[in-house]
Structures are given as C-alpha cells and as structure tokens.
C-alpha cells in the first residue's frame, strides 16, 4: 500500500477544476489531506474517497485517487460496502453536517459503533451550503436562515458528543484556520486502525460567515482553543498560564489560571486520550465560556470491522465443490 517513491501533495490533486467558493474552508482541508497522503506515502490507486451530497461531498472529484460521489447521507454505507469487498483499500469518507447528522445520521452511528476502517471527515459549517443557506442540524439556536427567518428553534447536535455516544474509538476535532493542528489531527486519524472521526469546523463565507470567529479567528486562537496533546497538561492562553482542572467536588472540568488561588501546573489535568470519561467532558464543554478543545479527544484502539470479518474462500473450483456439497446436505433421494 505504501509507495516506493513518495509523491508530493500536489500529485494527489486531480485535474478537475475545484468549484468551491473562493475562500471556502474546504481548501485548507483538502490541502491537509493531500499532505497527509503524501507524508504517508499512500498509493493513490489503493485510496478511495467516498462522499455523499453537499459542498464537502464534491471532495472526491478533486482528488487524484479513486472516488465515488454517492447520494445524500449514504457515503458511510457505501464505504462500508467497499470495505466488505476489499478490506485492503484505504477508505476515506468526506461529508458535511447535513449529510452526516441529518439525512445520514443513522449510517454515521453505525460505522462508528462497528469501527469500520475509514477516515471520516465531517466538514461542519453549521449550514446547508449547496441548497443555499438553510439551517442545518448543527446550526446554533437563533440562526436566521431562509427556513428560519425568525431564528432557529432546535437545539443543535454536537458532532463529537454524538460520535462518542455512538461508540467511536477515535474522536478528534480540527479547525480550518489552524492548518498545522488540522494536518496533525488528520494525520493521526489516517494512521488510526478503525473508524477515525474528525469534525472540522469550516467556515462558509457565503451563507454562514464568521460562525466560528469566536474560536477560529486568528487573533483569538491562542486564548480560545485548547490544543490537546496526549500526556501533556491542558494548558492554553497567550501567556500559557491558563488550564483545565478536574474538579473532584463537582466531577466536572474547571477553567483555572496558573499562579492564581494557589493553582500550580501540577493541578492541571494531563490529557489522556485513552480516557473516555475525560473525552466526554471535553466534548461537552460549553465553548462560549471554555476554550474549544482541538486535536485528538479520544483514541482507544480496538479490533476494527475489517479485523473481525470472517475469512472468505475465493477459489472457484473449491467453492463449486462446496456448493455441490451444500446442495446435497440434508435429505436427498435418487430417482432412477
């Protein structure tokens, strides 16, 4: 699967004209993905991108790999079928918030709980882009759109909570404006054996511009993002003096400042990506108050879907003999 002579990131770009809006967050995602594939030495002929419907789902057309642009919400199911037929292929699903969490929610749930070997990128722009700006299942309450002119009423679904709840063993988040961290996160996801779920906050500058500005705008990143590194304390802030502490009284996470009220670095929670309870608390953080956790929240390798597939006999003469035996098993009789 790994190439003898590595390719460059641009070698993974197809000759198709990219038709995302100029400035779309998707550009940074595809750039990161192409770099990840190049760094991994992935063979484009062994790589398959499967997508559903939506802006994000045009992704396969722009990749110089095998690609299948399917139907709305069903990429996960099609990708599962690809794995059933040929478990050796490197399978990616690229999807959006509507595709993955509205029409395709059921399939996402099941690829995660089955741990189907794939890198699943959910490009979350909190809006329906390709159908021109309707509210999506991740839109914040009160968002005014053509289908919610007086503001949306429904509580949004939180992709990471959903993923953890569904039983995902790899759950991560990236942001389109932090290219380095995004690259590292996707790299980890791609290297993961099983279903690796990555939510990417991705700005739609036409229909929902600035939706993530309070956490993703360059000037606030240091203070508003908590970059998670396994084994490292959860410290953030321009001064690197703020951190997350586990409050044993409330059994919840607190935001503290090192050097204030007797807090030292030793009080800061060390990130353990194998700890599902901590990952759940991180996914639950109210990011209007807390910094946005980015990177790998949870990684707990277990046997994957492909690992558990029953071996299949392929030899045709053997199979015909066995079929004949199956036909003759049980009660048979001879007519002369």
């Amino acid at each position, binding site marked *: 699967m790994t190439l003898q002579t590595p390719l460059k990131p641009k070698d993974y770009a197809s000759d198709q004209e990219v038709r995302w809006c100029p400035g779309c967050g998707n550009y940074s995602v595809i750039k990161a993905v192409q770099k990840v594939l190049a760094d991994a030495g992935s063979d484009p002929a062994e790589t398959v991108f499967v997508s559903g419907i939506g802006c994000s789902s045009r992704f396969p057309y722009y990749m110089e790999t095998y690609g299948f642009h399917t*139907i709305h919400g069903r990429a996960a*199911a099609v990708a599962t079928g690809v794995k059933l037929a040929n478990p050796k292929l490197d399978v990616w699903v690229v999807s959006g918030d509507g595709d993955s969490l509205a029409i395709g929610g059921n*399939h996402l749930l099941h690829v995660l709980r089955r741990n189907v070997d794939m890198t699943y990128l959910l490009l979350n722009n909190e809006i329906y882009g390709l159908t021109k700006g309707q509210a999506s299942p991740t839109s914040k309450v009160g968002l005014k759109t053509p289908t919610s002119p007086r503001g949306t009423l429904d509580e949004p679904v939180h992709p990471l909570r959903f993923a953890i709840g569904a039983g995902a063993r790899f759950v991560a988040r990236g942001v389109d404006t932090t290219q380095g961290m995004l690259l590292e996160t996707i790299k980890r996801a791609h290297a993961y054996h099983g279903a690796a779920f990555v939510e990417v906050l991705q700005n739609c500058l036409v229909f929902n511009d600035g939706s993530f500005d309070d956490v993703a705008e360059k000037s606030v990143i240091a203070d508003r993002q908590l970059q998670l590194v396994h084994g490292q304390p959860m410290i953030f802030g321009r001064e690197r003096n703020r951190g997350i502490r586990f409050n044993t009284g409330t059994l919840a996470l607190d935001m503290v400042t090192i050097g204030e009220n007797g807090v030292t670095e030793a009080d800061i929670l060390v990130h353990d990506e194998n700890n599902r309870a901590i990952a759940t608390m991180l996914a639950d953080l109210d990011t209007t108050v807390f910094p946005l956790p980015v990177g790998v929240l949870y990684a707990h390798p277990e046997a994957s879907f492909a690992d558990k597939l029953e071996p299949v006999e392929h030899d045709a003469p053997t199979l015909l003999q066995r079929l004949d035996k199956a036909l003759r098993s049980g009660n048979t009789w001879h007519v002369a």
Partner: protein
Amino acid sequence: MTVQGNATASSTATDVRRTVESAVIRFAGDSGDGIQVTGSQFGLEAAIGGADIATFPDYPSEIRAPQGSVAGVSSFQLQLAGHDIHTPGDSLDALVAFNPAALKAALKDLKKDGLLIADAGAFTTRNLQKAGFAANPLEDGSLEAYRVLAPDISKLTMNTVEAIPDIDSTSKKEALRAKNMWALGLVLWLYGRDRKTTAAWIEKKFKKNDQVLKINRAALDAGFAYGETVGLPSTIEPVAVPPARLPAGDYRSVTGADAIVFGLIAGCEQYGLDPVYCSYPITPASTMLHLLAKLGGDQGVRIFQAEDEIAAACAAIGASYAGAVGITGTSGPGMALKTEALGLAVAAELPLVVINVQRGGPSTGLPTKTEQSDLYQAVMGRNGDTPLAVLSVSSPSDGFEVAREAVELAVDYMTPVVVLTDGYLANASEPWRIPDLSALERRSADAHAVPENFAPYMRDPETLKRPWVVPGTQGTIHRIGGLERQDGSGEVSYDPANHQKMTDIRRDKILGIARAIPAQAPTLGETTGDVAVVGWGSTYGAITDAVADLRAEGLKVSHIHLRHIWPMPANLGDLLKGFEHVIVPEMNTGQLVTLIRAEYLIDAKPLNKVSGRPFAVDEIAVAVRSLIKEG
C-alpha cells in the same frame, strides 16, 4: 441421508391400500402448534417417497398470535401426487384441525366427503367460543358431509408420554406440545408414507434434550401406530400415492428462498466473483439472509446485516464498486427505501442484484401474505429515466436459474437487476433435481481488467456496458458518481447534448438485453390460438394447470409465462398477436397487463386477485371459458 431407489409407500406387506393419483392435505392450528414443521416434514416424507409435491405455508404475522383465534391460525397445505404437479391444490382432500379456530378457518376449503381429522381434546368450551362456534361441530351433526376422525389427540399424546419409562414430571407438562407429531404420525400412516426421515430429524433437532426427544419420538410412533392398530371406521381408509415419474437424478426439497440463494452463489462462482449480500431483516425475505449467513465465508459468501434498507442497498453498491457482486434482498416496503440507491447504481453503471420477495401492500400491508403488486415499482419506480432489468421467478426451484441469470445480466451489462419473487414462492417447497454444477458455464468478468485507452464510461459496442475497473487497479484512477457524467470520461457534465446521449445509452443498454435473452415460447400449447393466458411469477402453477384442463376440453388455449419482465423478449408482441384473446392473471390490480397493452397496443384483459392467497386453478379456467364465450 440418501434414500436409494424409488422408495414407495412404507405400508406393511399385508396392508392393501387403494391408490390415489394425488391428495391435497392441510394442517391447521395455532401459530404455536408447530404446524409449519408438521407440514414440511410431511412434505419431505412424501417427496423422499417419490411423490411430486407442492406446498403452501400460510401463517399470521404475529409470532404467537392470540391462542385459539381464527386470525391466529397457521396452516400448511400441500399436494402430493404420482405425477408432475405445479400447485398445492385448490380444495382439500384432508384437513387436520388442531383446534376449533382452525376448523372454522379451513372447513370451507374441504371437499364434500373429504377427510377431517380433528383433535377432539382441543374442542373445549373456551376454544369453541373463541372460534365463534355456538355448539361443538364435532357433536352437533354439522359435519355430516365429511368423513370425520376426531380422536382426543391431546389426551392420546399425554397417555403416550406418561407411558415412557424414565420421563420426568417437568417434561410431562410439555408433552402436549408433541401432539403435532402424533397427528403427523397418523397422517403419514394414512397416506402410506415412511416416518424414518422425521424420526431422524427429531433425533437431530432435540439431541441436546433427551426428554423432549423421547416425547416427540413416542408421539410420532403412537400416531402412526394408532392408524395401524385402532380399527378405524370403514369410511376412513388408508391410501397410497404412487411415485411420480420425475426425470432421473438426485433430488432434494427446496424452498423458493433457498433456491435463490444457491442460484446467486452459483452465478457469482461462474465468474469467480465474491457475492456480498447486504440486507436488513424483513418478512418474507429474511430467510435468504439466514441461509447466506449460515453458508458464510466457507462458501465464498460475505453477508452484512445493515442498519436499514437504504444502507443495505448502498453497501451492496459499494461492494460492487470495489469488485464484488453486490446483492441486496428485501420485500416491498424495503424496496421503496432502496429506490434512490437503485438510481445511483443505474447512474454509476455498477452490477447489483436486488431480490424483492413481494408481499401484500401498500405500506406494511400483509407481511406474511403473498402478492405480485411490485411490478410497476420494479420496472418504473424511480426518479428520472432510470431503466434496469427485471426478472421474475415462477416456481420455488426456478429461483436457482433466475438468480443465476440475474448475476449474469448484472455483470454482463453493468446494471442493477431486480428479481421479483413473492412470499408464497419463498416459503413454498418442491422436489428439485440437484443441478450439475460442473456443467456451469465458466464466464469472465472484466473486473480488474484494464481495456486499452481506458475511460470509465467507454462502451462495449455489443452490450453498451462500461468497463468494470475497480479501486486498487493501477493506471486507471477515476471518479464516478451520481451527477451526470460525460460520455467516455465520466467527468461531471451538465451539457444538454451529453445528457440526451447518456439517457439514450442507458435506455438502449437495457433494451439491448432483449437481443441476448431467449425468444418467448409458450409454456404449454401452440404459438397461435384463441386465448393466450400470459402470466409471470408464482401464478405459473395455477395457470399451467388451468390451461392443461382447458386444452383437455379441446379449447385452443396456450400458456405464456414471462421470466423477463423488462426488457420483454423481442418476439413477445408478435407472439401475442397470434391469439384472438390475451388474458393476464395477476395477484395485483393489473400491472403486467398495463405494460403489455402499452408496449404492444393489444387489448389484453386483466384477471386480478389480491386476497393474500394464490390463484386457484379453477378461478383461471372459469375466466378463460367466459372470455371465449363472450367471443
């Protein structure tokens, strides 16, 4: 177990029996009474004994429907005959009623002077009330028109069990559950069948529970012995059914569901391709998934129980995309959910086999009852001009050939193929001559083969199919999808002329299948005449028997039965124009007939039935006679 030779009736040497050419028997009782097992064991004994059989299992959709209620009656009808038969029979020579409700539900189908076996022990006041009887019909003289044998089967079974030397008291309480075996023993004796196969089946089935095994064995033997030793009334005589003159070969019994499974596997193995069967449990299609799961990887089969019908279809498409033969099986409501995915398979031009085991609709409809009302859905039920091939199965064993052909068409034309079978066919069984698999044609699929100047939507000039080049192949990286594709390159294209061209190609590719399939010939009768009775699917047996009867009366009637629903055989229009009248019996409100009228501009007449039960032979014969009379 293999029985050599034309095993005849197992009755003792001194037992002189009247021979009957055929018999139609129905077992009926509560859905917890083990009726289906009883009927299928009887059918197996009859078939192994050399008779031809046709069965009709009929059961409620509830697993344990309210006990004693008419709605909860489960039944199993079969015909056994000393000649080739095609249906489980119209009216009953014998009815075995395990309770009053069963009698209530089935008595109307019992012939005058027919044999009624009833468990008198189950005709309690409460059961009589539940079935809506004011008085006990076994005692009030209302059954005088029939030959009634009404022992207290419940009590006789209990007595039998109590006589087993080392039976424990807990098991005794379970003894009543073996009354079906007692009745089976008696009926086997009455019809001169052996009970060895059933005895062996009991040994295997209950090998982990010695007590239950003994109870069932004892009950079976006791019922059989009851016939032999108890002096039955002179009106109730045991009979013999001679062996049918079937073509020589090794036989087994096969249900419609199992035959399809075997056909799918054989079809894939012809090409050396893996079947990947993706499905979601639904009545009456689940039995295919069960058998495929049992066969598993050893038999080259990958199965996937998907999270829903849509995922099942999509995973099958993904499997085909990656080089296997994606297959999905379902029933009507599930078919509706797969519709969008079928469109994707048509657009992507990938092989896909879809088995629709039709049942009564609309919506959830009649889950366990049969119907043929999904023909429009199969042929036309998609958005866009989205043609695909549609085949239909006409008897339980026919499923083997049809499923095999479905795989061939899917692979050879890179198209979805819908196979229409139905609940009746899926559950029914018949003797099947085991095919010689070594004679299967070895075929080659071009999956993984790279044509010269490869382009994903280049065309085979003969079939118009595109090449099947799968991920993992070097030098042919490409993208496909549901957006309209440029002819040749497969790149996204919104060009008006290209869409016209691609739509035409998709249509012509499917219509071109008509050139490759055999010309339509009458199943029975001449190629011209007064009436062509045109059928498809499970009406086969009833139509062919009706046409045989009509021809015996000297009428110029032929039976034409379609396997290829879409495209239809190239000569069909000309063939039908050779008849004065065309009548199309269908278990729907007239779907094939509409298609035939539209395609050939002929005045084909419908004959429709949607009662959840197959056509009776006579219903078709009557309709044809009146058509001729009306001129």
